[in-house]
């Protein structure tokens, strides 16, 4: 078991390094530091100010290696952007934002809390509701209930998230005044989080129900279900005891895919509802062309995703010993 976990963790390392290298290509090789400086400082900034900014942020340094040092010395590699980029990201020394020099790590620490208060309810309640609905629909597979359920799912999937948000805000907040339109307050967070969470659950419901239903129906057609039925097990019990249990394996995988979004927060929801989470941090970074912050957000998103994947694989191997052996 330990060997499997170690192997799995080692497999994640090159992926993280690959993401870092991709970021290096995008932000240091492809992106033009002068254009970045112009966007950060404004179109009217003088050449001197721009050059200063580039020097201060270290964008003018040699990229792959530093020819000032002989090849045999460490400085040849370490005094260049490539090494620094990997080094600072991997040691979580993200430095300051390109715009106001505010430490990015602090901003992330402050944003994680509000983000989680929105995404965790969406994740937990949303998953339970989706599983319940899809079990219900799968139970009536082939009937009108099933068809209607599937059709409503397709309808729900086809609505763009803005419409859910805007209509929700219009009716629930501005007309009926059940919830505040936007904002955030730690003391009474649930009031601010309720509507975004509701919208988040509804937007994921259509696709989720369709996907989980396919899994459930696939399980229903397996041999062991027929055996159980032959033994005289009731349909309801088959659904809960056999189909749900075995269907949880593929569901688990799809849930892990959502974990990075738990952490990153929902870009759109946080923005529309004025929640100061990581989604807002990302939005501001996009808005102000703050490449340093954006870089870090992409990196963190990828790392969380890789960790999530490793965790699923490990939990998988607890549930299903075949995975461990192959």
């Amino acid at each position, binding site marked *: 078991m330990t060997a499997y976990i170690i192997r799995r963790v080692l497999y994640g390392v090159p992926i993280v390094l690959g993401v870092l290298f991709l970021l290096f290509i995008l932000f240091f090789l492809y992106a033009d530091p002068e254009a970045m400086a112009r966007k950060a400082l404004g179109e009217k900034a003088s050449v001197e100010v721009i050059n200063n900014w580039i020097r201060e942020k270290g964008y003018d340094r040699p990229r792959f290696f530093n020819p000032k040092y002989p090849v045999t010395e460490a400085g040849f590699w370490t005094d260049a952007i490539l090494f620094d980029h990997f080094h600072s990201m991997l040691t979580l020394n993200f430095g300051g934002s390109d715009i106001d020099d505010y430490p990015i790590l602090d901003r992330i620490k402050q944003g994680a809390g509000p983000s989680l208060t929105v995404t965790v309810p969406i994740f937990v309640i949303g998953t339970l509701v989706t599983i319940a609905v899809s079990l219900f629909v799968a139970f009536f597979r082939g009937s009108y209930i099933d068809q209607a359920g599937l059709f409503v799912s397709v309808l729900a999937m*086809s609505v*763009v998230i*803005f419409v859910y948000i*805007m209509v929700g805000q219009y009716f629930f907040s*501005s007309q009926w005044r059940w919830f505040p339109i936007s904002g955030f307050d730690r003391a009474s967070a649930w009031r601010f989080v309720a509507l975004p969470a509701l919208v988040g659950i509804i937007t994921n419901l259509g696709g989720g129900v369709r996907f989980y239903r396919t899994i459930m129906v696939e399980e229903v057609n397996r041999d062991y279900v027929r055996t159980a039925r032959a033994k005289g097990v009731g349909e309801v019990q088959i659904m809960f005891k056999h189909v749900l249990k075995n269907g949880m394996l593929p569901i688990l995988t799809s849930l892990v895919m959502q974990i990075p979004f738990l952490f990153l927060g929902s870009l759109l929801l946080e923005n529309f509802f004025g929640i100061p989470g990581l989604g807002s941090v990302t939005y501001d970074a996009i808005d102000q062309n703050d490449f340093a912050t*954006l870089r870090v957000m*992409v990196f963190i998103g990828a790392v969380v995703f890789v960790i999530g994947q490793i965790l699923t694989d490990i939990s998988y191997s607890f549930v299903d010993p075949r995975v461990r052996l192959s």
Partner: protein
Amino acid sequence: MLGWQDYHTSNLVVALLLAISVAGAWYGRHNLFCRQFVRDFARRRLAVAAAALFSLFVGVALADSIAWCDPVAEENAENAGIEAFRPRTLIDRLFPRDFRESAYSAPLATNAFYGDQPLKHPGKHVLGTTIIGHDTLHETLKGFRPAMIIGAFTTLLVIPIAIVMGVLAGYFGRRIDDVVQYIYSTLASIPNILLLIALILVMGRGTLQVCIALGVTTWVGLCRLLRAETLKLRELEYVQAARALGMSHTRIICRHIVPNLFHIVLISFVLRFSWLVLNESILSYFGIGLEGSFGAMIVLARDELAREPVIWWNLAAASTALFLLVLTANIVGDAVRDLLDPRVRTAE
């Protein structure tokens, strides 16, 4: 007059697309498999209705891509203004020239929404006008073109890359497989929307950039499916037989592998279309989408619901059009998947 213009290119592309589809239909007419497919498809009433509506949207997008300039008489050229020289598309020509007001007006209204002055075209704006007085119906019809560009262009970019990488990885295995798998697992580990945003911010804003960014996030899924299918095909007996008969790898790939992958390509793209269009609208919210797309319209309409009295028609028109487009694409996609390969499962 001014040499080669953007609208010339767009006219040419429309002509090309029409030629390709006519040729495709001609070929398919005699192809047993295509005929069987069409016959099975025709049996699904909902899918046929959705396909008809979707074709109508494609038609609108094509009509909006055919443009030409009207001749301006010599003596009027001086004071005709820049508008007179602008190319107008077939869709523009459905509406009278200068079909605009100075600000908002409600659907079919005779007076302006604010100020109550009589409109220039009373009762003619079926869906009202936008904040700068453009006819909402006109704007909405023009929104189909960016959506189709996103869908079609991204598809054209992605298919060759995904096929080459997927087939090479699946067919030859070993090192190539490791490299391809490594590349796509790395890309797949970055949350899609963040990757999209990072790519567009670095590359700059524009239609091509948006399509490239969407393409980078799209080829991963397709490549994975194609690789898996190639792995399966490689072991089949007729491929083994071709090997034994001394056929070269290139010939086997072209004759026996790639043609058998096309159903997967088709299915993933019809299903992916709605994803592309919906994600473009999210990019619009960050100000990095396409100009004039439904997403951009919806984002503009954001503050209008907060006005008193509420201005609902812009949001309603754009989101209904987007909804219908995505809905028909989804229904057609499901039907195509069921008919060609019910086993391909999509997580999105």
